[in-house]
């Protein structure tokens, strides 16, 4: 019995016994077919970032399922650009704070937050509101410029080999990615000039030193992104789609590039979440090279129909 069969059968069983019992009135009933323990992907819409996250993590089985007492956690949001939260270039600071709070509640000993930024890190950490929100929530904010600050680079990054990689055989990535017990990826959903879409996988490029970004761009961005993601898969991905950037991404020029969509997605399969993200932003899946590569090297599935997706509309 393969996974798909298993899912189908359990779903059928569940449907038989307990449609009325389990199907909460909030769910978009027609699409919710399968039920087997916790869903693979949870999508919440029409709420504020924090309330959507509370619901989402509850559906995924609670933060306790991912973070055990005493563990160290790395939360990796997108803090790349010197843009305010309204521009949707960086992850929503309230969401980052809520995740940290839940990690702490679950008993995490230390929660770290960092990103390798595109603009000057001192600006982006501040303008994005993430540094302040994360500190308030009790996280350790790690920041620095790996391109010009040699000391920061030496102390925080190390060259590693990427097992099984064809192009990105070696890369320099942040120590926290290797040292933390739990790795939580918190991207924001945006369109992207080069990679076409930035979601879970593109966000992980921010674990690599700035100088090494150049290697990605020179030697095949899509291949490198996928291989970079194979190094350590996040234990949990939370996609912030509260505000999304629908054009001129990933930086954004003015307000017309941003849409208040009020979505949030979560799950463990980053390829599936990226596929869902592409559908959300109307980006054709075949145009996104790194998703195809990731699928081919077995990082996850693009077949959303095979997954147990829980859809929750907080307004209904």
């Amino acid at each position, binding site marked *: 019995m393969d996974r798909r069969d298993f899912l189908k059968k359990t779903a059928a069983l569940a449907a038989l016994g307990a449609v009325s019992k389990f199907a909460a009135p909030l769910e978009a009933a027609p699409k919710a077919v399968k039920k087997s323990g916790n869903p693979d992907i949870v999508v919440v819409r029409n709420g504020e970032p924090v309330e959507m996250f509370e619901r989402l993590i509850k559906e995924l089985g609670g933060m306790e399922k991912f973070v055990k007492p005493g563990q160290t956690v790395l939360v990796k949001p997108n803090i790349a650009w010197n843009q305010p939260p309204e521009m949707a270039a960086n992850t929503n600071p309230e969401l980052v704070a809520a995740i940290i709070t839940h990690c702490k509640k679950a008993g995490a000993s230390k929660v770290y937050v960092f990103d390798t930024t595109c603009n*000057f890190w001192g600006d982006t950490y501040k303008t994005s509101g993430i540094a302040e929100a994360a500190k308030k929530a009790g996280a350790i904010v790690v920041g620095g410029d790996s391109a010009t600050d040699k000391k920061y680079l030496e102390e925080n990054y190390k060259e590693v080999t990427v097992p099984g990689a064809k192009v990105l055989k070696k890369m320099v990535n942040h120590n926290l990615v290797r040292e933390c017990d739990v790795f939580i990826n918190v991207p924001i959903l945006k369109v*992207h000039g*080069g990679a076409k879409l930035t979601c879970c996988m593109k966000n992980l490029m921010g674990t690599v030193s700035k100088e090494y970004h150049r*290697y990605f761009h*020179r030697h095949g961005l899509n291949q490198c992104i996928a291989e970079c993601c194979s190094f350590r898969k996040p234990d949990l991905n939370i996609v912030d789609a509260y505000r999304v950037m629908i*054009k001129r991404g990933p*930086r954004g020029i003015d307000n017309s590039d941003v849409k208040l969509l009020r979505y949030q997605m979560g799950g463990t399969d980053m390829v599936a979440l990226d596929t869902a993200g592409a559908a959300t932003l109307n980006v054709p899946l075949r145009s996104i090279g790194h998703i195809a590569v990731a699928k081919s090297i077995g990082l996850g599935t693009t077949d959303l129909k095979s997954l147990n*997706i829980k859809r929750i509309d907080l307004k209904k």
Partner: protein
Amino acid sequence: MKKNWNILRLIRIVLAALFFIAAWGAVWFYPKFTDLFITQAGSGFLAVLSQASLGAGIAVLSILVVTLLLGRIYCSILCPLGIMQDAVSFFPRKQKYNSWTRKVKYPVFLFSIVLAIMGFIFPLTFLMPSANFVQIVNYGFREAAYRANLGAETSNPALISMLTAWGMFLILVVLVRWKGRIYCNTLCPVGTILGFAARFSLFKVRIDERKCISCGACERACKAGCIDAKGKKVNNEDCVMCMNCLSQCKFDALKLTGRKPAEQEHPGRREFLISGAAAAGGLATGFLLGKTAKPEGTVMPPGAGNFDRFTSRCIGCGLCISTCRGNVLTPAVTQYGVRGFMLPYMDFNKGECKFKCRKCIDVCPCGALLPLSIEEKQRWRLGIAQYHPDLCVAYLNGEDCGACAEHCPVGALTMEPYKDTAIPKVNEKLCIGCGACQQICPIRPKRAITIKGVSQQFPVEKPREEAAVKLEAEEDFPF
């Protein structure tokens, strides 16, 4: 009764030390503090002349008033280069009266001022004390500390700029060892102007001829070489009010007093002649310089306007460079030709001009950069991006890259479909030449997209707001 003059000297030393530490710290560690260079008289004069800057006007006026009251006290407590000279004068030598300073200072001053008026301000790059101070600290000490891996940051000056700064410092040390504050009384334009004002100041160091026995104790202690013990007079024009001499007099003949205006010597005929010749020399040099070629394609800092405007106002102090957050401003070596050695230019291989930053405009102490607001600066064209497909990975190898378009803050770069991938296209109406694209381009050693400076900077169009796209997800779950 003998007055205790030492207290005045002590106050002077404490104030000077405080200001010196603040100025050094501002250049080295804390760019936000560089605003304190508004206290600098020389660059302040220039800011008033070039932009009628109110802040600089108030500062310059206050300095003049203080000088008319107390003499060149500015040179001892507010001039960082003056304080630096005092700081390096350990084990000072016995000094002697310099009677000849006027024969040098007026010609030097007139030569550089005539050139400045003709639009060639560059001699002041090497004569203006605040500029020399910033250059020595920033390109000299800080850069050396950076290169020696001592944890200092760098403004990426070329090796030759660092050596020039060290050269300035060593010359200064030699001059101090030779004749104390001789730089201030011969080469420094601020010293010359304030010295002229100090002739009319109310309080002066004076010698009581009835009490003085010409023992020479004060003359030996005077680092400015302005006391003539034999002639029992003080050349107050050269006196920097360090008060070192006052406590030396055992006969109470030396005083800081407002009474009895002493006779001042006026410049003699010979001084007029030399000065006139220097002015004429300046005029001739100016005509020759006018024939030198203007640089092409070198990107000037925002607000520089055009090359003529820029080189007639910027003294190359490099405060903008030490403040530059993008680490993109760098002192020029040959980029501007002979007229622009040490002037700041934008090196986009080192960084980008941060879109939301106008620190260089804020900090410029001499008004060389137009006072653009942040909104104006964000539309201000410094140069224009030029795409070189023969170097680009997208064009050559068909790789998705798009790093340049990704970083463009004005949407002037768009990725246009090309074969299986996309290549950047420059919208010449929108590009401001901030260099974000050149800075991030992964191609080495030559980048596939570079910025060419414009000869005249000007504001470009605002990008049109495009209509927002409707998403299926707004209606219902899209998957």
